[in-house]
């Protein structure tokens, strides 16, 4: 079962069971809904921007363990970051889960390195990146996005 544990790491399982920042954000000035039409996963990401900084961020919705844990850990890492920093993290994260990670990228992702196992499961890349696509849409001022 060691290979399964590469995907379902303890940290991921723990976040999927008790997601952080899992709530609506009434003061949000950016919001987007992300949808994966293949599996029905659906998340709303709320962002409160203060100038160019992500002052607060939260999410709600339903999805598999990978997508939920990814959303949870994403909200933790981007809080306080600038838009450009968040987009750079998305880029590094995308490279990580598709097996193209660089040493620099992995270093800035910190705890999110637990998602490296996803690269062995191509069908699950969309699960891991759904929240990030949704955040990207929210920051760009779009109301919704899909992984298709």
């Amino acid at each position, binding site marked *: 079962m060691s290979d399964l544990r590469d995907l379902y790491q303890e940290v991921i399982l723990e976040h999927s069971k008790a997601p952080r920042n899992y709530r609506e954000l009434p003061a949000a000035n950016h919001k987007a809904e992300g949808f994966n039409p*293949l599996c029905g996963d659906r998340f709303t990401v709320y962002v409160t921007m203060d100038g160019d900084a992500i002052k607060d961020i939260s999410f709600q919705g339903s999805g598999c*363990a990978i997508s939920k844990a990814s959303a949870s850990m994403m909200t933790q890492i981007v809080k306080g970051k600038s838009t450009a920093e968040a987009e750079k993290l998305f880029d590094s994260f995308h490279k990580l889960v598709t097996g193209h990670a660089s040493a620099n990228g992995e270093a800035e992702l910190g705890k999110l390195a637990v998602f490296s196992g996803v690269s062995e499961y191509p069908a699950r890349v969309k699960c891991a990146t759904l929240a990030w696509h949704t955040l990207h849409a929210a920051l760009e001022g779009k109301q919704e996005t899909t992984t298709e």
Partner: protein
Amino acid sequence: MSIGAKSVSGTGFDVERARADFPILQQKVHGKPLVYLDNAATTQKPRAVIDAISRYYEGTNSNVHRGVHYLSELATAEYESVREAARRFLNAADHKEIIFVRGTTEAINLVAQSYGRAHVGAGDEILITEMEHHSNIVPWQILCRERGAALRVAPINDAGELDLEKFSTLLGPKTKLVAVTHVSNALGTINPIRKIVEMAHGAGAPVLVDGAQAAPHLKVDVQGLGCDFYALSGHKIYGPTGIGVLYGKTALLEKMPPYQGGGDMIMSVTFEKTVYNRLPYKFEAGTPDIAGVIGLGAALNYLTYLGIEQIGAHEHEVVRYATSAVSAIPGVRLIGTAKEKAGVVSFTLGDVHPHDIGTILDREGVAIRTGHHCSQPVMQHFGVEATARASFALYNTKEEVDALVRAIEKVRKVFA
């Protein structure tokens, strides 16, 4: 949970012998023997089908209905012999009533666009059920939007059975067509088609039956059922992808305008006027999927050789075994518990998302489908986003059900 697991089932069906006919089943996945339980999505192909397609391309390849040369005559004869085989398989009255299409989806679209456009107008109604596959919903929505007609939906109960009483109240003089699935792909429910047809005909509405999930498991007799159209996909009955059959009653087909224009569907063409070909060619524009039809013919032969009733009885026993073994696992909720079922065990497991179940099962060599199964209204009825679905075919065994159960236990361990 391996009680009573043996390869020759109580029905006398020799499953091990049948398994040897399917080359793909011999392989391992992630180092484990492949346990293929995604048959409602598509079935595997027996050697006879694979060989028939190769033989066609190696020895017979030619266009049909055109040439006077040797190969064209051979190809045409073989192609048309499959039409007769399909007629026998469905017990249609006439081979003219068998139209080759890409699959069930195209068959339904053909009826919606051809019959629908000719007979459905503003204020009319199309009646479907809550358990339909998207392919038996969306073509009718498109038609209704175009014609200003309304789509009516007969509800299901919490076992996943059609509510016949509500169905009957939705039938009326405005109902121009009833479209209903024979077996639900997400729930496995077998609908009482004969009764539905009786009720619909009583209201003057013809009935289209989506037979994609029924044809692999049940003996289909379109004259016995009395339905007006019956659609099925070749790839779900061990044939190739890209080929399917639409059955339609001659009287209705004769009155329907063509679905697509092109070669083969015409008698004569001038720039002023085109005379359409006779049935069934009126509905087969362009060079058809000849290899697909020949592969389908081999699949029909194979099913006839094994016996659809024998296959059905064997599958019934495996599905019954799976239903009791899977439902005994703590946290499992069965979705679809109709009295009459075929081929499908759909379930959820506690809070675990079906996609996570699917990934873990895959690592154990067990292939299932997870998601909404192109039946989002069914998911909404049961208040779930998705389910895990094990679906069975003639080559599945009780030992494979045991492997499924062990794999689900592994999911419970990972998510403990």
